[in-house]
């Protein structure tokens, strides 16, 4: 099967400011759709797959443009992974999507065997990860997916910060044969972190903001809120670095090492505080000689009551203001 070289530099996608704004308006689904169109064009081996979420995932456009290259298995998530495995083994690169809450729970055994064990090049896209679908209740909130995917061996876990990064992450993942989980957080009209093109590499964290006193390591939708918190802290005289840890696994330990001189490390994620990014950082630091104090912000160990995205963010204390407040109170404790 002919693979076009992975140089996305001369690519068809234009990372212009205008496009960045449009993608943000369309939200993660729109970004997925944009990336899919690009892959459809340049990577004939790519197959999109879904479990009755063709419309929801924004792939309708793709299925019209590339007939026969979107496989919808119906409401059958376990079968989704199995079929993806069959396709992957025949030389295709399936990008399978469904709600993050279902792909990280309903079909974990299938992911375990086909992706973690057999290492088949399946790219699994978790839609509405975190709280985006929270209005539909706890069944549709994906808060444990980071932990579930991270504990499985051999799976790369990506959690892009905004719509631009979602596109970059999806395209980058198509360049490797590693089984990959891509977690899409954030709502429609998603806040923009990157106003212009930048260099994205799987496994390489991005220092979004430099700072002297403390460091916030954030992932996914929380990167924006972390930057916001850092700005608020700056006003109070606390100088705060922000790192976008878009690749939760493998963790960019060099980036964490560079922050060891900070007074405090804060991890923020739109996911459970058990087992996710915070845990990954804690695991790494636990083995080091001088480990800075760390606070872990995220969804407390509970199911939030159903509500709108903004309501839930506040309930879980994950807005920029609340993050800043919690950092200040932690600093006073320490």
């Amino acid at each position, binding site marked *: 099967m002919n693979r076009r070289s992975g140089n996305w530099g001369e690519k068809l996608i234009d990372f212009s400011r205008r496009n960045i704004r449009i993608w943000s308006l369309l939200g993660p689904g729109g970004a997925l759709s944009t990336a899919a169109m690009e892959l459809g064009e340049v990577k004939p081996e790519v197959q999109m797959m*879904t479990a*009755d*979420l*063709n*419309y*929801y995932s924004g792939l309708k456009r793709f299925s019209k443009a590339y007939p026969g290259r979107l496989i*919808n*298995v*119906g*409401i*059958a998530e*376990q*079968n989704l992974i199995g079929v993806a495995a069959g396709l992957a083994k025949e030389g295709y690169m399936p990008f399978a999507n469904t709600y993050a*809450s*279902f792909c990280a729970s*309903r079909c974990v055994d299938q992911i375990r065997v086909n992706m973690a064990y057999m290492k088949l090049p399946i790219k699994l896209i978790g839609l509405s990860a975190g709280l985006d679908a929270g*209005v*539909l*209740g*706890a*069944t*549709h909130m994906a808060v444990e997916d980071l932990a579930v995917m991270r504990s499985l061996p051999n799976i790369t876990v990506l959690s892009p910060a905004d719509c631009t990064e979602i596109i970059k992450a999806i395209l980058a993942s198509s360049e490797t044969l590693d089984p990959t989980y891509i977690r899409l957080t954030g709502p429609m009209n998603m806040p923009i972190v990157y106003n212009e093109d930048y260099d994205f590499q799987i496994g390489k964290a991005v220092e979004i903001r430099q700072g002297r006193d403390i460091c916030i390591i954030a992932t996914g939708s929380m990167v924006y809120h972390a930057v916001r918190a850092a700005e608020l802290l700056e006003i109070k005289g606390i100088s705060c670095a922000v790192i976008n840890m878009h690749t939760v696994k493998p963790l960019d330990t060099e980036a964490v090492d560079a922050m060891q001189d900070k007074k405090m490390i804060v991890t923020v994620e739109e996911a459970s505080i058990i087992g996710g990014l915070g845990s990954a950082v804690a695991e790494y630091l636990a083995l080091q000689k001088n480990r800075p104090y760390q606070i872990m912000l995220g969804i407390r160990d509970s199911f939030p*009551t*159903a*509500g*709108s995205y903004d*309501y839930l963010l506040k309930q879980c204390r994950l807005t920029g203001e609340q993050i800043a407040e919690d950092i200040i109170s932690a600093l006073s404790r320490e």
Partner: protein
Amino acid sequence: MVDKEIVDVCNASAARMRRCIIDMAFRAGKTETHLGGSLSMTELLAGLYKGIICFRKEDPDWQERDRVILSKGHAAMALYAALAESGIIEEEELEFFKKDGSRLSAHPSLGLPGIEFASGSLGQGLSQGVGVCIALKKMNNRKSRVYVFLGDGECNEGSVWEAAASAAHYGLDNLIAVIDMNGLQYDGSTGTVLNMEPMEQKWQAFGWETVSIDGHNMNEVLEAYMQHHHVPLAILARTVKGKGISFAENSRKYHTASLSSEQYEQAIRELG
């Protein structure tokens, strides 16, 4: 034939429920609600709550009550309307549907009287029903029956068939699965997304009795509920998604949708 009086009572109730559903959907404002799949099962729930099941509204945990499990949890609006119709919850509470922190969430959650199980993740209700039925048998409770409402698209889920096999194996004659066959799932018609027809043969092959009805004909609905059966019974109810509102009927778009003021006015006019 079912007593005409009961049929009339149930039909009137269904009409009021439709109105409640439209009101809830409209009050939700710009957030989309699962309108289509709620309207398709209105008669099925109205007939059940008004004509068939035993419950005590002042004692929702009464041991001998019949249990209703809404496995297709996205049709919560229909269930809430039925609960209000039967006095298990206050009609005023419907105003809080989908509001932040409300007991009436988009998918049923525990804490609201009349809700046996939280749902929202498709394919789980029939298993829960199997467990309840086995428990009832163990407790020698011969009165209570268990009604599980499934969508036709939901039958794609393998867990439905695990439960179906197990219900037949245990001879659960106290279990009734009602399949709301509105023929549409999220991505399109059930036939094009993943064909499960012929459903009747399928349930029979898994060891169930079946009865096929028009899910909007109250007479047929009630007769189906009253049918005697020695193994679990599947009521295959052909319905129309979005039933009662012309622009929503049989429209995939109204699986979830929000209503504009004009659409709301039109819907109310059409419901009469």
